[in-house]
């Protein structure tokens, strides 16, 4: 065990506090409830101290002739104040340090810094995407002065610059804090941004022919305290104050970056990272961040469909479920296969597992989805919940292993019915001919695909942003999705669809709310014992030793 970090006494605005040694002055102030405004400082990046917004008054204990601190009437050290203001972002606290965050001098400093920052700023807030979440706006209100003494011409700088495929730059709004430069150098390890020219003419740029095209480029937009860097995708789409923000997770790979989904009514406008030091720090990749537009697609499946006389006809839920159950009742257990998805939530996978058990089929798996990973956040496993599928016994240790066998049995005429849950079977190794060979094909999905087109029954499900549920990331962290928007039309939450199907097949009542589904899981899967959906919390819950969990044994087929 290492020694505990010693606590140091620090006086902030007249009150003594204790903080662990190594705490930044700016962080100590925030912890004491005295927020110090800042632009360039970011806790995950180096501190260049260039914006000067965090100036405070600082002092150290006055030393007596015996080289010991002089004590005042209250028995605390008397502080000898440094006459000039100090930046609080680049210095750690020290024993007996005094800080003033709200003195006349600090207020004057903030007025001055704000006035300088706004000299060349275009003040185009009405058409700026950052408006509403702009530090320059907020600190103008809190720490600035209403007027400006600037009568001269503002410096003109480059505008509407495509720094890369996903980031647009307005140099006139830039306050030269260098957060983006430091992020690209220190975190993304792709040092493509820099400041050129000097003085009031300095501006941010990328070297010609070296665009900001890193897969992490949009994080620069998040950390830009002003509207200089904007997302080309989100730009001019929606005023941010209209966005309803929902905490969720990214489902584009097995990392499960924590996110905030910004939506208005039934449309998702953006996805941004949410800080979680156990998963993604403050970042997420561009690929995951922008991978939501399909949810807003015009082509979404909005009503169940049943094949009648060769064509798919729109139906209500009742007939679609009844038809599915009737059809499934005509097959022997080993004539049915269930192809589920590593994109399904634990709750959905649990019900899929129940479905597999009810049908008694030994033929089930998920479709593996591999891509190229990187050293930062992007996992090579593009399925967000492979561990969940394994833990809940829908897939074994080698997800996708059974697919080839299932396809072979379809070709041999041994498997006659397939339930395709959130997957296109063409991605599972089936051909269009294989789909036509099936007597019955159920497609539970959100968008049309060849499987949907060939299906006997189509059930419209919900996208990741339209449902609650949980997933387990590659490191065994159980995390929650939350519902940001409603599913379109008559589409339903997948877990409810699976429950209806189970009820119809087994004749028993299913769980009423998703919490009950989770309760069933927690009551059965040892790794999740004692947990509930609400206990997972916004930052997830680390499961113990999930990698060691053997896949649940395949259910005994009723007859082979």
């Amino acid at each position: 065990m290492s020694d505990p970090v010693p606590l140091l006494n620090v006086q902030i605005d007249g009150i003594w506090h204790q903080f662990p040694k190594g705490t930044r002055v700016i962080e100590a102030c925030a912890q004491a409830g005295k927020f110090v405004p800042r632009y360039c400082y970011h806790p995950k990046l180096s501190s260049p101290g260039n914006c000067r917004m965090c100036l405070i008054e600082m002092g150290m204990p006055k030393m007596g002739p015996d080289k010991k601190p002089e004590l005042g009437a209250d028995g605390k050290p008397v502080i000898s104040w440094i006459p000039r203001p100090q930046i609080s972002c680049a210095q750690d606290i020290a024993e007996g340090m005094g800080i003033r965050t709200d003195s006349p001098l600090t207020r004057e400093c903030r007025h001055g810094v704000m006035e300088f920052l706004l000299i060349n700023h275009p003040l185009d807030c009405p058409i700026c995407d950052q408006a509403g979440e702009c530090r320059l706006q907020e600190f103008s209100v809190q720490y600035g002065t209403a007027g400006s003494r600037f009568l001269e011409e503002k410096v003109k700088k480059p505008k509407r610059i495509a720094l890369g495929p996903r980031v647009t730059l307005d140099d006139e709004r830039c306050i030269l804090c260098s957060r983006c430069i430091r992020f690209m150098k220190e975190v993304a390890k792709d040092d493509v941004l820099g400041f050129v020219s000097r003085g009031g003419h300095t501006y941010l740029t990328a070297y010609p022919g070296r665009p900001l095209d890193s897969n992490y480029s949009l994080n620069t937009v998040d950390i830009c305290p002003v509207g200089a860097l904007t997302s080309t995708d989100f730009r001019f789409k929606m005023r941010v104050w209209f966005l309803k923000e929902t905490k969720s997770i990214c489902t584009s790979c097995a990392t499960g970056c924590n996110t905030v989904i910004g939506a208005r009514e039934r449309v998702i406008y953006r996805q941004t990272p949410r800080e979680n030091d156990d998963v993604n720090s403050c970042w997420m990749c561009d690929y995951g961040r922008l991978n939501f537009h399909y949810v807003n697609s015009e082509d979404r499946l909005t009503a169940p469909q049943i094949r009648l006389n060769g064509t798919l006809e729109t139906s209500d839920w009742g007939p679609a479920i009844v038809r599915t159950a009737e059809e499934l009742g005509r097959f022997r257990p080993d004539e049915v296969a269930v192809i589920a998805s590593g994109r399904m939530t634990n709750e959905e996978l649990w019900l899929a597992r129940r479905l597999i058990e009810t049908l008694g089929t030994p033929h089930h798996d998920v479709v593996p989805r591999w891509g190229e990973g990187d050293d930062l956040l992007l996992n090579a496993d593009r399925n967000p919940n492979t561990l969940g599928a394994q833990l809940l016994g829908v897939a074994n240790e080698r997800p996708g292993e059974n697919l080839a066998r299932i396809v072979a049995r379809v070709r041999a005429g041994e498997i006659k019915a397939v339930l395709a849950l959130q997957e296109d079977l063409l991605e599972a190794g089936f051909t269009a001919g294989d789909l036509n060979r099936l007597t019955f094909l159920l497609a539970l999905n959100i968008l049309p695909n060849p499987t949907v087109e060939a299906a006997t029954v189509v059930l419209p499900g919900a996208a990741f942003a339209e449902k609650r549920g949980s997933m387990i990331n590659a490191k065994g962290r159980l995390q929650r999705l939350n519902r940001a928007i409603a599913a379109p039309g008559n589409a339903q939450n997948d877990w409810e669809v699976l429950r209806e199907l189970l009820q119809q097949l087994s004749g028993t009542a299913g769980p009423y709310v998703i919490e009950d589904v989770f309760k069933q899981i927690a009551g059965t899967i040892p790794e999740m014992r004692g947990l509930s959906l609400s206990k997972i919390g916004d930052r997830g819950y680390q499961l113990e030793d999930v990698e060691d969990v053997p896949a649940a044994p395949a259910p005994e087929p009723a007859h082979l």
Partner: protein
Amino acid sequence: MDIPAELEAVIDEVIKHYPVSKRSASLPLLHLLQEHFGYITDQAIEWIAQKLEIEPVNVLELVTFYPMIRREPAGKHHIRVCRTLSCAMAGSYRLLETFCKHANIDLHARDHGGHLLKSPDGHYSIEFVECLASCGTGPVCMINDDFYEAVSDEEVPQLLQKYQ
């Protein structure tokens, strides 16, 4: 861009002076390439970046920050007039104007960090520079590598005569 072997040998030697970070050799390398080629091209920026294993934008930052690094050729003779305080008070602004008048340079073409002021025939170019380190004898100027102190307006035509 052709870097002669002798120049590259000098460059390699200079880089050795910065064992902690090769990046620190950026400015010395810019000076060496400017001395050799007369100005800094995009290719020079990219060559330095590659040599020092940094991104070209890191070199571009320096090139655009320091006025003494040129992006285009200077005139046949390059004049530098000091504009820092002592020289300014001793009349360097007027001296700059006088030089421009006699060298046929349009002073109004000046912009921030922009192009070099040059006579139409390219014979002379002029730059208003920071301190040339002779504050007691202002206004001072340099023509090419020659240093002139306490330059009066009357001397200017003669001085230019020397540089044909």
